[in-house]
């Protein structure tokens, strides 16, 4: 089942040339979206009844936690494609997606903490979402470390692909059990970022911010993937030709 069009897309050289062209456009769209979202969210959206302005950090917190989880699934899918059809490029996509996802999870945790301080008096609240986010961070760290601990980079890719797939299977169980654990110890206290019944003009900037974060994720992934392609294909002719042109 080797559809050659499928493998054509998967050739690193093709991806490198395509990304060469779309990179400028991608940067412009990403930064403009970010700019619009942040200004609208910070500047014009109404303050929350109880939490006042400290609530505005949601425009950073929700998109990053959203992307962190989506990034993990993307990483696992890339790993699965790499394992099944043995496509090198998708292994590298996974390898680059791990640090990006990790940083996004860290951002989500930090913004969560910053938000917790004024409203609930402490940086860290053992809440369901925060705990699952912390565990997601540990999963990212595990995949990142495993990928780099093999002498042969190919088996390192395969191992981290397997770990991310196993992690994906376990994520729903972890999230369910953390929710259940949360209701066990503090059934009645705070549960932020559940589906907030938000006022419309609080919601639109959030939507823009989420889309902006998707573009940021795509941009970061493309950039680090280009670096990975150059380092992995340093032996091939087209990379040597490329370097000689510089």
């Amino acid at each position, binding site marked *: 089942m080797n559809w050659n069009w499928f493998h054509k897309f998967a050739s690193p050289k093709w991806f490198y040339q395509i990304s060469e062209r779309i990179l400028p456009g991608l940067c412009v769209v990403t930064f403009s979206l970010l700019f619009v979202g942040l200004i609208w969210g910070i500047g014009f959206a109404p303050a929350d009844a109880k939490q006042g302005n400290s609530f505005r950090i949601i425009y950073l917190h929700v998109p990053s936690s959203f992307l962190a989880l989506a990034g993990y699934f993307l990483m696992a899918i890339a790993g699965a494609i790499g394992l099944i059809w043995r496509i090198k490029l998708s292994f590298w996509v996974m390898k680059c997606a791990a640090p990006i996802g990790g940083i996004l999870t860290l951002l989500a945790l930090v913004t969560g903490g910053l938000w917790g301080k004024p409203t609930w008096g402490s940086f860290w609240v053992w809440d369901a979402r925060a705990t699952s986010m912390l565990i997601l961070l*540990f999963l990212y760290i595990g995949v990142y470390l*495993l990928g780099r*601990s093999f*002498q042969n980079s190919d088996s390192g890719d*395969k*191992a981290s692909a397997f770990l991310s797939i196993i992690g994906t299977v376990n994520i729903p*169980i972890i999230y369910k*059990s953390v929710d259940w654990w949360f209701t066990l110890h503090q059934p009645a206290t705070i549960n932020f970022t559940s589906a907030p019944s938000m006022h419309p003009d609080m919601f639109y900037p959030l939507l823009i911010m989420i889309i902006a974060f998707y573009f940021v994720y795509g941009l970061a992934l493309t950039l680090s993937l280009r670096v990975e392609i150059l380092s992995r294909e340093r032996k091939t002719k087209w990379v040597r030709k490329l370097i000689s042109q510089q």
Partner: protein
Amino acid sequence: MNTNYQSNLFFSYMRRDLLIAFRRKSASLNPLIFFVMIVALMPLSLGSYESRLQQMAPGVIWIMALLSVLLSSESLFDEDYRDGSLEQMIITPNLLFMVVLGKITAHWLTKSLPIAIASPLMGLLLSISPESIFSLMIGLIIGTACFSLLGGVGAALTVATKDKSFLLALIIMPLYVPIIIFGSSMIYYRIDGMYWSYPLAALLSIFCMLTILSPLSISGIFRSSMVE
């Protein structure tokens, strides 16, 4: 190669590993001794107040059981990898599901089950409330089985790496979360006098899922030419 092994693949590999474990009894008791020592040290750090110990006891015992099984699960494939019999295992013309399950069961019987059996004694050491001893033991029997299954996956992933013991812990720890949650809440439910069959059922369902998933993923790992 070994043709008539097909019928009782599970038992033959389990018997072989049990035989090896019994030949070297001292090695297979290490997790139990580690568990006893580390639980005995807890009151020194937590202070020996009756109420505080009683409240902390279930969580402490579960975490220490996790650590003991985690440390011992590295030896699951490491010895076979070093003396070459892991390659022979991968070469055998039969599916690795039962082979791996047999090895993990042998590891569970020799290394993790003693911990579950010793847990009531440790519970008394930490002055746990007597009526929750039974639920502690049941929970740990299932819990250690889940720990061994997940430890097997971690061991398979890190068999060809350099710094094994830490790496295995780092990649597998997040996956232990649901087991720890349901396991220890079983005892807290029991102490509150509440209906503790929910967490037990949850723990059992996780155990069933793991019994399916971990041999499948381990055989996938070994057959995907990752073991250099």
